[in-house]
């Protein structure tokens, strides 16, 4: 409780909300709260800074840079990176979901019934989110409430837009057309994203390899010479 109070007082509401949103989007349920994440990050940053201060002369600069990278890197490694990975997985799952929904809507023309039967038949992350939303608003809620629930747990605009167009469609005969169109778009989107990633992988991989091989080679050549100079 004290930890929660500490983080609530120290960090701005905007950053608290941002971390909360990101934690929800990673699919982590109740294992860690945004306050716990912020507190742990702050304590680790202070610890790193203090350890780096032990280095003579350059300790302050090293500590400051390490702390800054850790502060930025922890959010990327533990929140942004898993969110991106989950979004990729959700897109493949959405493709399966749309296929099954198309099949279900052939026999049942009621969207709610079709959605419920499909979410019961498939077992993946997206279906768990849908099932939770249905359980929450089964009796009193509408599609709007279900969509709001989905918005808190999915951080992908495309997936949300698919659900939006399904939920707000008033013409029952248009479902097949909408679904097939979205399936084509989704596959195109997955391919484009993957190609973009692979191009980045190419540039990043070669960049890292050149950088490290250069640094290691220079160190190997110069280290004995520099050591001799320092000892003399």
């Amino acid at each position: 409780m004290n930890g929660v109070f500490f983080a609530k007082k120290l960090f701005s509401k905007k950053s608290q909300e941002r971390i909360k949103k990101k934690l929800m989007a990673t699919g982590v349920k109740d294992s860690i709260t945004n306050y716990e994440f912020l507190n742990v990050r702050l304590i680790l940053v202070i610890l790193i800074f203090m350890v780096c201060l032990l280095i003579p002369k350059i300790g302050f600069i090293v500590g400051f840079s390490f702390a800054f990278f850790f502060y930025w890197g922890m959010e990327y490694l533990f929140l942004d990176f898993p969110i991106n990975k989950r979004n990729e997985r959700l897109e493949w799952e959405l493709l399966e979901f749309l296929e099954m929904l198309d099949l279900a809507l052939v026999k049942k023309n009621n969207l709610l019934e079709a959605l419920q039967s499909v979410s019961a038949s498939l077992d993946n992350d997206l279906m768990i989110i849908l099932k939770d939303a249905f359980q929450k608003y089964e009796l009193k809620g509408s599609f709007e409430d279900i969509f709001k629930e989905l918005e808190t747990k999915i951080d992908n605009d495309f997936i949300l837009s698919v659900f939006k167009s399904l939920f707000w469609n008033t013409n029952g005969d248009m479902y097949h057309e909408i679904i097939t169109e979205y399936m084509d778009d989704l596959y195109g989107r997955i391919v484009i994203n993957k190609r973009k990633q692979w191009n980045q992988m190419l540039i990043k991989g070669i960049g890292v390899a050149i950088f490290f091989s250069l640094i290691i080679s220079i160190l190997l050549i110069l280290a004995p010479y520099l050591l001799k100079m320092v000892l003399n």
Partner: protein
Amino acid sequence: MQALIITQTIFSVLLVIVILFLMRQRRIAKYEKRFSYFSLASVYTDKISISDSFWQDFRLLLKKISRKLPFLPFFEKWSSLYENYNILRQKEKINALEFLILKFLIAIYFLIFLVLIQILGKLNFQGYHYLIGFAFSFTLPNLFLLVLEYFWNQKLNKQGLCFILELNDAFKQNDSVKLAVANVLKRTNNNLLKASIEQLDNDLAYGLEIDKAFWRFYLQNHIPIFYKLYQYMKACYVIDGSYKTSLYYLKKNLFQKEALKQEYIAHFHFVKIICFGLFIIPFLLLVWLYFSFSDYFNIMYTHPLGILSIIFILLLYILYYLLLRFIMEDGKL
């Protein structure tokens, strides 16, 4: 010296026996070919080969040991670690418990081999030498298993895709799962999946539900394609949809993924080659400098600061490897 001469004579005698045996076999084959024109059937048609008979006897031995093993529940629990391997789940191959026994047998044979070397070579082995030898020979089959499993899964993946294609074709004639599976079973000849398809056909014939039958099919062959097949069949069964369309979607989905995977592999190998080239450049530089100026690196392993810098370079190498791995894993399908 005497021991060496004895071993050499034993091996040379063995070699001569093998050569004589092979010559005899060659002569038999020659006669068989000559007489085959005048006889109804060739002479040794029903006889199995030496390697097959050896393998059969060895499997029998493994089975006998596995039946009479003391502390059987303990070993069964231990062998359950290997039950996830597809290759150990096949009927004609050895199972997980037999594999564990095989590991023990190999380790014991290796120990006997070490003792023989010690006696013949007059070497002085300590206790820890035997311990290391035992540990090495006990874990070596795991490595073989991993390699075999990799190739087995590759084969299974290819044949799994073919199975789905055939199932899709069979569904075009009729929307009944049972008929489609029976149709596919008729067409399959020498296939890794034949036993599993037979079981699937039997399950469906005895009235098992479709999703459960396909789950049992997946349990026999643990590959992602069959999990997907199970999911689609289950979904179709629950929503009461058309299997034909479902299989069509699955086929489309799998082939799209396969195409993307191939593209990824092409990108991945390109980066891998370049990174590997750049990874070994510092090593080559080190070797060249060491042979050109051998005294240049003396200070690196005599002074504590030099050792520290070596550790720093090694850490840089580890960081380099980890970063590359992270970048490569990011684009994986």
